[in-house]
């Protein structure tokens, strides 16, 4: 027996629907409502197999009623809904689907067949969506438990330390109190009890943090303090990292609040951190940094999902083995894993990706085999106007130039953006995809190049640093800007790279303009360099 609700104030229309339904042979228990208010009460108390909802109601309209019962969390209304409208009311139909109805029917088209098709479609779509929602929730929970599994050994370590303190002090107190000959010093015993209490409280705190982390809760969209969340997560994972991994934080004070699900953000961090750990079996450096960055129009052009604006960037870098090029494109795929059975479900990074997309964020991965990997997560700043320095018009004018710049970059998206920006600023731009081609370009230009913008890691080529070394054998004063997706802190081993000549990718137009100008203007071109230029 199907439970059906007809919401329509016109008794003749209700009758017609009942008649058509009867002729389909469907066994139905039919309820009726004549107003929005009445319908709302019925819908709130009972689930139906299908609801036919007329757009025109005496006290409200069908869309308003839908909006009232629609649950954005599940993207569903409490029961499957077929909206009934008059001819040519496309806006209502679109709105109905937007607010959770599964199908619509034009009233003049109602017949036995259209009713039965629409009600079946509504039921099937409704079921599909609610199943999918359930599956997604399950996967999220599984993923979370996965992360907890990774944490367990570290937490066990903490607990065993706390238990050592508790048991050790209990034994001491016991021993002193039970020795009949000893002078019992109250303060001494009290001190033991305080130590026990402090350790037990730490245990309570540890359990609480674990519980918060594993709680099964829907995605919430609260304001979270990003730096604080990172610090708390790190204190939770630090013992799982092992002694050989050196964890450092470099958090930017102004990177404060974002709107996101705290639990999901923690899971995402833990996932990336644990992957980083696994990439460094011999130990290494793990660095977490926050910055406020601007992803500008130019950048958004190369990444279809990115809206230009200010973002908080969380960069997680490791000095591990790097991700092989052949798998880099697959790392965010669900169930893709390089770990052996039982070591990982392959859901970790796909969940990270899902979280970032849901939060209107963006993620970039820079990796270099044998050097390491950097995950840069961008989450939108709550207050778009604040935080980042805006260049004024005058300033921007000063950032143009007509010098010649050679861009050595193998990623065509990046080089295209850089070339466009530099040309816009008035520079003459040459481009090479590799170090070898770069050398040829320089020879052809007879050294008449004022600045080289060189990617540090170039594939199928000598790297940017060796390339510049080679260039400087001929042109010792050649000005250089090094760029890389890695954070500067992960390139500290390269002494020739410093804050002044380094630009981290992705860079905005203003950042590139400013950096180029500052390097070009630094210690103005000397006569000596001009002489060298003539010589070659």
């Amino acid at each position, binding site marked *: 027996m199907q439970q059906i609700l007809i919401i329509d104030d016109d008794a003749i229309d209700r009758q017609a629907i009942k008649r058509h339904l009867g002729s389909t042979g469907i066994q139905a228990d039919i309820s009726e409502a004549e107003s929005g208010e009445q319908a709302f009460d019925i819908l709130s108390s009972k689930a139906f197999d299908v609801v036919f909802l007329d757009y025109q109601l005496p006290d409200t309209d069908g869309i308003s009623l839908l909006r009232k019962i629609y649950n954005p969390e599940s993207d569903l209304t409490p029961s499957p809904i077929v909206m009934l409208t008059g001819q040519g009311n496309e806006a209502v139909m679109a709105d109905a689907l937007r607010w959770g109805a599964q199908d619509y029917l034009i009233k003049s088209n109602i017949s036995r067949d259209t009713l039965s098709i629409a009600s079946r479609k509504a039921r099937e779509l409704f079921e599909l969506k609610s199943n999918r929602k359930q599956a997604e929730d399950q996967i999220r929970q599984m993923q979370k438990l996965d992360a907890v599994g990774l944490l367990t*050994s*570290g937490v*066990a*370590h*903490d*607990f*065993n*330390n706390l*238990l*050592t*303190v*508790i*048991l*050790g*002090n209990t*034994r*001491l107190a016991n*021993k*002193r109190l039970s020795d009949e000959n000893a002078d019992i010093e109250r303060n001494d015993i009290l001190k033991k009890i305080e*130590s026990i209490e*402090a*350790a037990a409280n730490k245990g309570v705190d540890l359990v609480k943090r674990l519980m918060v982390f594993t709680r099964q809760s829907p995605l919430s969209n609260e304001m979270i303090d990003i730096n604080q969340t990172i610090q708390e997560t790190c204190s939770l994972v630090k*013992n*799982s*990292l*092992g*002694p*050989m991994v050196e964890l450092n934080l470099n958090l930017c004070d102004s990177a404060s609040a974002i709107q996101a699900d705290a639990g999901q953000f923690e899971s995402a961090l833990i996932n990336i951190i644990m992957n980083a*750990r696994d990439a460094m079996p011999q130990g290494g450096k793990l660095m977490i940094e926050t910055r406020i960055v601007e992803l500008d129009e130019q950048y958004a052009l190369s990444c279809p999902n990115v809206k230009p604006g200010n973002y908080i960037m969380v960069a997680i870098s490791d000095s591990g083995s790097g991700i092989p090029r052949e798998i880099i494109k697959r790392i965010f795929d669900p169930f893709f894993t390089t770990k052996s059975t039982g070591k990982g479900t392959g859901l970790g990074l796909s969940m990270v990706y899902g979280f970032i997309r849901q939060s209107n964020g963006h993620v970039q991965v820079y990796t270099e085999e044998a050097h390491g990997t950097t995950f840069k997560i961008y989450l939108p700043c709550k207050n778009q106007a604040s935080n980042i320095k805006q260049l004024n018009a005058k300033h921007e004018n000063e950032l143009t130039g007509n010098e010649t710049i050679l861009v050595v970059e193998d990623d065509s998206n990046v080089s295209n953006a850089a070339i466009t920006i530099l040309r816009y600023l008035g520079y003459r731009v040459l481009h090479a995809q590799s170090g070898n081609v770069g050398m040829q370009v320089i020879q052809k230009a007879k050294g008449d190049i004022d600045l080289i913008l060189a990617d540090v890691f170039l594939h199928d080529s000598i790297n940017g640093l060796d390339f510049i070394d080679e260039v400087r054998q001929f042109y010792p004063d050649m000005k250089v800007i090094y760029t890389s997706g890695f954070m500067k802190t992960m390139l500290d081993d390269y002494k020739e790279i410093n804050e002044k000549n380094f630009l981290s990718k992705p860079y905005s137009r203003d950042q590139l303009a400013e950096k180029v100008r500052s390097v070009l203007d630094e210690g103005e071109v000397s006569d000596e360099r001009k002489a060298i230029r003539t010589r070659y």
Partner: protein
Amino acid sequence: MKEKLSVLVIDDEEAVRSTLCENLESCGFETYEATDGDEGVEFIQHKGRPNVVITDIIMPKKEGIETIREIKRRYPTIKLIAISGGGRVKATDFLALAEKLGADAVLSKPIDMEKLENTILELAG
């Protein structure tokens, strides 16, 4: 009177260190503390050799495995007890490794104080 046995406790957790030391002192041992392997080795170098060194295995600076190796190489007569509460790899894995590298005894946390005291006496008494 028989001289007290001296024990150096290396652990990065202050509360663990002081608990171990107090318990050992209550049993008549003389104790010294160090917060990491470097400090421990420095202590031995400058302040004298203890009869027994107890070292945690997972520590931030110089970790225990390295410490054990160094102390055993430079001061083969000092008895070494490795302790661990687990961590990245199962505790027992680390402890097995510690034994292989020359620890004279291994104990996992939470530490059974009586067992620790007996172990010290067996090794150095």
